[in-house]
């Protein structure tokens, strides 16, 4: 657990010590970085006395580190654009996603239909926009839910220990042993379908998507739990759940943010994979996954059914992953895999 050590920096007065103790290996161009590192380290140490400047200073540092990562910034911009396009989508196309153009079945891109039409005469551009919106919603909701479950289960298991912890770990193991893809497919593929099929899918993806993060949360909580401020809170008579919510979770927030980000892309990817077999969002609703699944089967004869959704989904997942990586590097500068700053 190389990353764990630095995920709870907020109360960490000895940041300065760590940073100073780290050998300055870089020369030349990196000297300014090293100096900056020393400076921020010292600042952190001093700011332990004055809590508010520490907070804003830390955020500024994180922002600076994040902005240095060009791929992550590009990813953030792309995500922003995609979200805007998804929101204003209905005004960007003269067609609704469920409109049928009876004069154009399986037509290649034209002036009227910029991305062509499907077998049933629906406009690909409108469908893609609708699918993008659905995929984004699925990704975001699943990420929030599964990271939430992971945070609660992991933190409670580690804080209380004993049989609660053993139960939680056993359930985590059990869910990891069950091939989740098959079971999600089993339930989602045989549901009655309809407009709300995506809700069921979101629940299933969340229920089977939190286990690995919960383990990490648990091991982080185990070390945070021993800190003095947790002890102090306990001696002041604060209840367990309150300590977890007010003192432990905020201190592993960086991990949770990174985890939620990466869960967004994992959920979109999982929905796409399920959709290829027809286990994803059920018609008449549509997601990027269902479009891509249909398109992939007819790729050689009708490439326009595939190209649009494929480009957008790869852009989306790639950007989310890049932002997740950038966040991890910004939060966790001591990991060697990140940019030294």
């Amino acid at each position, binding site marked *: 657990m190389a990353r764990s050590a630095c995920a709870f920096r907020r109360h960490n007065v000895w940041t300065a010590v760590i940073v100073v103790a780290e050998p300055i290996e870089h020369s030349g161009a990196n000297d300014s970085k090293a100096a900056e590192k020393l400076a921020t380290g010292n600042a952190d140490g001093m700011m332990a006395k004055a809590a508010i400047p520490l907070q804003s200073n830390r955020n500024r540092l994180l922002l600076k580190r994040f902005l240095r990562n060009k791929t992550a910034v590009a990813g953030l911009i792309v995500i922003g654009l995609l979200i805007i396009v998804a929101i204003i989508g209905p005004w960007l196309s003269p067609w609704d996603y469920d409109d049928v153009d009876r004069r154009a079945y399986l037509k290649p891109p034209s002036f009227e239909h910029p991305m062509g039409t499907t077998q049933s005469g629906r406009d690909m551009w409108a469908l893609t926009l609708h699918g993008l919106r659905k995929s984004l919603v699925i990704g975001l909701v699943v990420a929030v839910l599964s990271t939430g479950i992971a945070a609660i289960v992991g933190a409670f298991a580690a804080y209380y220990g004993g049989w609660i912890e053993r139960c939680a770990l056993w359930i985590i193991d059990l869910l990891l042993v069950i091939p989740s893809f098959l079971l999600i497919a089993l339930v989602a593929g045989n549901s009655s379908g309809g407009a709300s099929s995506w809700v069921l899918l979101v629940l299933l993806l969340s229920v089977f998507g939190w286990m690995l993060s919960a383990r990490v949360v648990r091991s982080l909580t185990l070390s945070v739990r021993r800190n003095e401020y947790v002890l102090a809170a306990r001696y002041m008579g604060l209840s367990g759940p309150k300590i977890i919510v007010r003192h432990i979770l905020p201190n592993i927030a960086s991990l949770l943010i990174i985890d939620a980000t990466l869960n967004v892309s994992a959920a979109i990817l999982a929905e796409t994979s399920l959709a290829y077999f*027809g*286990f994803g969002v059920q018609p008449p609703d549509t997601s990027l996954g269902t479009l891509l699944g249909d398109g992939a089967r007819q790729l050689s004869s009708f490439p326009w059914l595939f190209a649009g959704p494929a480009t957008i989904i790869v852009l989306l997942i790639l950007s989310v*992953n890049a932002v997740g990586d950038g966040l991890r590097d910004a939060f966790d500068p001591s990991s060697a*895999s990140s940019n030294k700053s």
Partner: protein
Amino acid sequence: MGFYLLKRLLNYAILLVVATNLSWLLAATQLNPRSLYEVSNPPIDPVSIENNLRSRNLSDQVPLHQRWVVWSKDIIFHWDWGQSPRGGDVGEEIERRIWVSVRLITLGSLLGAAIGVLIGTWTATRQYRLSDRTFTFLALLGLSVPSFVIASLLQVFATWLNTVTGTRFFEFVGETGAHGDWFGAALIDRLQHLLLPTVALTILGAAFFSRIQRNVMLDSLNSGYVRTARAKGLPRSRAIVKHALRVSLIPTCTYFAFSVATLFVGAAFMEIIFSFHGMGDYGVKTIQGQDVHGAVATAAFGGLCVLMGALLADFMVAWLDPRVRLGGTTYGRQ
């Protein structure tokens, strides 16, 4: 050591049994084998449908707990995993399909891991240079593209190449095809069929492992023992290979154990797109075909694979890492 191992195996066995039973419960309540018969034309007599389903322990009119008793007794006493709704023994089917999966994933997963480790090691020693950034981006891209998209694109590319060159160098339907009867023709034919899925699996594996290996390698490159080795006068290349690489392989190997285990059921896309009738393909087909027993058996097999992967990973760590001892006995080399 023996006690530790026994305790571990017992826990795994319990996990697997519970997981299998939960899968059965889910499959038996969600899947509807009756629907297969009801849509047939000309319509089948309801009584004979019922008899058919009952003879295979699939009727939803029999109470759930009775079906569960029959199902579990068959497995415990006869190692009989049941019948599919159309007839056909689930166990036999799986026995045959496991080997298809083995043939499909062996080459691809090994190549993917090897190439990934090579790229990861190389890029870690060149952190932030152009080559490092390029490969890091490519790996990120590889992980961001759904695997069926990669497979479909490969297929289109191969078709195009076949038409352009006017040959049938790329084969992408099934495991074998028509081939001459000269010595080695059958083997070449098999390899031709394996080529595309192996390339797809290799791309995915290389993307995954190069990321892991790069991260771990960077951690060990910046660690004290590598610096010590360099300070004692060891050339950089030897310090990297003898000290940094060796240590960094430990976590990568555990990932490898897991990823191979999950590939048995996880290579479903490759199997379906390239028509290899392995376990992943079976899992999807059983769910689409309302096959309760087949789906449960596949889930149980998948769970077994994960646990074998976990066990394998533990042994690999014990073998590679001299600091780890299982229950007091030194394992492997010192």
